[in-house]
């Protein structure tokens, strides 16, 4: 292997050069083949991929519809604010480290981090999540100057829900919160996934929940050119969103305000209904809470406070509290007696102050009794013995059948979700409710206290109001509803919620008139007279006291009992008597006597509704001794 001859060596070298040249050409041919493959054969595929890279379809969340009262007062609206948002999947490096750096530029507090952590746990990886909300203009400018340091983090303008009156009507409006998996299921059920791309909030309770798909609107889209950091460079095309529909309520905000104020710091519920339509004029559950707390994601402290409070402000008492109706049940009992022919109005019983059934004695509240009592007096003075006897004569199944027609123990179908059913006791109900045979049996002794609205009776305030409205409307029952009409924000078209008569109860008008006259008597000369003293209109009412504590014959002394054990005070009313425009049911938890605690609230509400009279203080408690000791 030696090249002694230089010429031979040069030849050899040149042949090697030729090989090298061939190798070069072969390699370049290989590259050329690759270019043909990528740039000709696969060109359209890669073109699409390049476009996909470049163009991002950004949903534009529509303005959520407004909620206004019957006079156009805005109860729920939106405002725009800047938020600082992080897309965890686009952030380079350690997220906590990046947030530390971010905190140098923008004020980020421990609670912001906490909330953000929670959001990350709940969210999918590719979502943009707010780390700070409501940035000031100064903060926005400051971040934009540093934006290049933070790929995957950007400022976004977002709409926030606002309830301008805070806690006012909270249980009616409800609130919105971040979309959860459960909400996603509802969205999928409605086939609305595409329309909810980019939507981060969902109605959780109240009207916000029930009318979610009306309020939401149609999501718009923007084609944006983005760079590799995910920052938008420019907009290519835009389809504008369509704002959600507005809700106009039957609710009267001023009336609602008066009703809420009338409670002062007492717990309870009030429902006022227009009897001829079922439109709800006021729906109160006290105490309430500020729904604005939920919009940004509620802080854990606030959440704990609301949920551990003994007053249970999160419970909508009007729809989910079930209470014995007490003596407010009596007018319906009397009407049943007339309908079934068990009593004539003028038929008189003697009330010695008690009623013996078997070996048990049922006491009347008035010691010594009411003496001779006809139907009118039984309602006006709220005589228990009359109804003990009547209940016994009617029997539980007749009572149940009759009361069911007035909606007792049935959901009313109000346009708020999650309404409770209550309990309309009957033999059938007892069989279903209990498991042991000896418990399933209905004892006729149990029927007696049903007659005065005690025992197993448990109804929601909205049921009491609906029954009152139905009676006021001469037996024609409407579905109670809060929304009067839905306005399409684009066309301005209004879709009215037509008053839906659920049923007309087969009653004789003469019977109805007798009961109404007796209820007018209550407010004129009976248990409601003090609360309605001096009223310039004629109204009908009935007081009630729902017993919580078994007194076992002892005298009920309010002051000696713990507040939680005091009776619930109730009052139902309608006015004006000749052509009722409003029917009200009031419940004051542990309020004591209905005449003292609940009736004055109803008076303020009716006064405003009929006369426009604005009270200047919460409804006072009538502290004088009532005419009767117990209702």
């Amino acid at each position: 292997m030696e090249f002694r001859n230089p010429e031979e060596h040069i030849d050899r070298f040149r042949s090697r050069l030729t090989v090298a040249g061939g190798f070069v050409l072969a390699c370049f041919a290989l590259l050329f083949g690759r270019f043909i493959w990528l740039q000709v054969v696969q060109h359209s595929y890669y073109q699409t991929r390049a476009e996909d890279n470049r163009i991002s379809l950004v949903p534009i969340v529509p303005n959520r519809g407004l909620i206004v009262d019957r006079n156009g007062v805005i109860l729920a609206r939106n405002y725009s604010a800047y938020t600082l948002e992080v897309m965890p999947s686009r952030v380079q490096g350690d997220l906590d480290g990046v947030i530390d750096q971010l905190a140098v530029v923008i004020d980020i507090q421990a609670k912001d981090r906490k909330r953000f952590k929670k959001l990350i746990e709940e969210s999918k990886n590719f979502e943009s999540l707010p780390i700070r909300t409501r940035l000031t203009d100064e903060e926005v400018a400051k971040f934009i100057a540093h934006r290049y340091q933070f790929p995957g983090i950007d400022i976004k303008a977002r709409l926030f829900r606002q309830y301008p009156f805070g806690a006012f009507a909270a249980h009616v409006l409800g609130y919105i919160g971040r979309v959860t998996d459960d909400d996603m299921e509802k969205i999928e059920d409605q086939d609305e996934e595409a329309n909810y791309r980019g939507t981060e909030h969902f109605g959780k309770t109240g009207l916000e929940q029930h009318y979610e798909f009306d309020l939401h609107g149609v999501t718009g889209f923007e084609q944006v050119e983005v760079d590799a950091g995910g920052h938008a460079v420019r907009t290519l095309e835009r389809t504008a969103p369509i704002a959600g529909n507005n809700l106009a309520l039957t609710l009267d905000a001023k009336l609602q305000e008066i009703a809420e104020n009338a409670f002062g710091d007492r717990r309870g519920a009030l429902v006022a209904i227009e009897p001829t339509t079922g439109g709800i004029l006021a729906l109160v559950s006290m105490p309430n809470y500020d729904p604005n707390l939920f919009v940004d994601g509620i802080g854990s402290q606030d959440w704990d406070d609301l949920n551990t409070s003994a007053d249970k402000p999160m419970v909508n008492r009007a729809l989910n509290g079930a209470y014995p109706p007490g003596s407010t049940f009596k007018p319906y009992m009397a009407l049943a007696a007339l309908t079934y022919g068990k009593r004539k109005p003028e038929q008189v019983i003697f009330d010695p102050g008690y009623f013996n059934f078997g070996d048990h004695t049922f006491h009347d509240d008035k010691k010594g009794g009411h003496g001779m009592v006809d139907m009118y007096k039984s309602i006006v003075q709220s005589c228990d013995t009359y109804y003990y006897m009547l209940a016994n004569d009617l029997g539980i199944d007749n009572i149940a059948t009759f009361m069911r027609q007035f909606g007792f123990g049935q959901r009313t179908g109000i346009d708020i979700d999650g309404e409770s059913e209550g309990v309309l006791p009957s033999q059938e109900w007892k069989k279903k409710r209990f498991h042991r045979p000896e418990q399933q049996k209905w004892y006729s002794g149990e029927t007696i206290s049903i007659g005065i609205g005690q025992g197993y009776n448990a109804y929601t305030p909205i049921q009491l109001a609906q029954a009152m409205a139905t009676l006021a409307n001469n037996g024609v029952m409407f579905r109670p509803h809060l929304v009067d009409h839905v306005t399409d924000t684009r066309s301005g078209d209004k879709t009215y919620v037509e008053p839906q008569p659920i049923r007309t109860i087969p009653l004789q008008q003469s019977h109805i008139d007798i009961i109404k006259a007796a209820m007018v008597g209550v407010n004129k000369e009976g248990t409601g007279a003090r609360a309605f003293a001096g009223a310039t209109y004629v109204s009908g009412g009935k007081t009630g006291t729902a017993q919580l504590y078994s007194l076992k014959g002892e005298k009920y002394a309010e002051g000696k009992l713990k507040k939680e054990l005091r009776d619930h005070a109730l009052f139902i009313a309608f006015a004006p008597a000749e052509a009722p425009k409003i029917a009200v049911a009031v419940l004051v938890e542990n309020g004591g006597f209905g005449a003292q605690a609940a009736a004055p609230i109803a008076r303020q509400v009716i006064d405003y509704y009929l006369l426009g009279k604005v009270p200047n203080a919460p409804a006072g408690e009538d502290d004088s001794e009532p005419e009767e000791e117990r209702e």
Partner: protein
Amino acid sequence: MNRWHPRVLWQKLVQPIDPPLLAIAGALLLAAMIIIASASPERLTNQAISVVVALVVMRLIADLPPQRLMHYAPLVFAVGLLLLIAVALFGDISKGARRWLNLGIMRVQPSELMKIAMPMMLAWFFQQREAMLRLSDYAVAAVILLLPTALIVRQPDLGTAVLVLAAGGYVIFFAGLPWKIIVALAASAVAAAPLAWNVMHDYQRARILTLLDPEKDPLGKGFHIIQSTIAIGSGGILGKGWGQGTQAQLEFIPERHTDFIFAVVAEEFGMIGNLVLMTLYALLIGRGLMIAANAPTMFSRLLAGAVTMIFFTYAFVNMGMVSGILPVVGVPLPFISYGGTSLVTLFIGIGILMSIHRHRMLVQK
């Protein structure tokens, strides 16, 4: 004429320069300016300064006779090797690799020097053995080649190691390494591949895995290669136009002014741009091989051949990795990628070719 007459001075200045080589290199530099102006306009001035420096260096080298180059070859190699050892012992670490030597006033990367020092040294070695070349000499050459290469691999700097290994390998190949040995080496290389796999760094293995299936890790290691193939493919035949490449302008192509600049070429100028670039490289290589063929001495032949083939290796490895047929190693696109160091190295190579070409007759006479 007066020796200070401008015309005389000009002739003196251009005398060592080979017009065809300068024309091809000039065309490549022009292309570089156009592409950098699109990919990274703010770096244009810097690159222009590098071009001037590189041209001055080329002119100086071109003026040196090959004998002088040969004379200095062992010294340059020894200095390069010592610096590599120094790097291994005291080098600065940057981005996880120990490549730089801090000399107080400047940081140098000795592995870059090896790209030229290696072929010079081996060409010198074969020149010494010209009359009595034995098979054992190839073994010595292999040691000269593998020692610095191993040091560079250890830094680690796979791209430079590939180039240094190739540079030396070409010298040995042109020196006449018998085909049987070449075939045997190729066969054992294939056999040793699993062994090499075991000694590789994780990131090096990842690069190879990424080449095989870039979509497996689209946001991580596969990102570079996916985005560059999208850029090339979406460029089509005619390209999207200068400054119009969405992949390049919206920063989807990483390192788009350095190692991945070819993706910008392919996206904005399409296959036409690729072919123009490949043609310029082919002309450069052709001219270089021609100079090698006519070189008078063993040293100059081997050096010219090896330098030419380094240009090819740069171009092929870079275009191959950017278009996804070779693993990603840090090799710039010759004459086009932004960066002064590699540009100076390349123009030292051009200068060497010019020197060899100019002195082809002098020795023969």
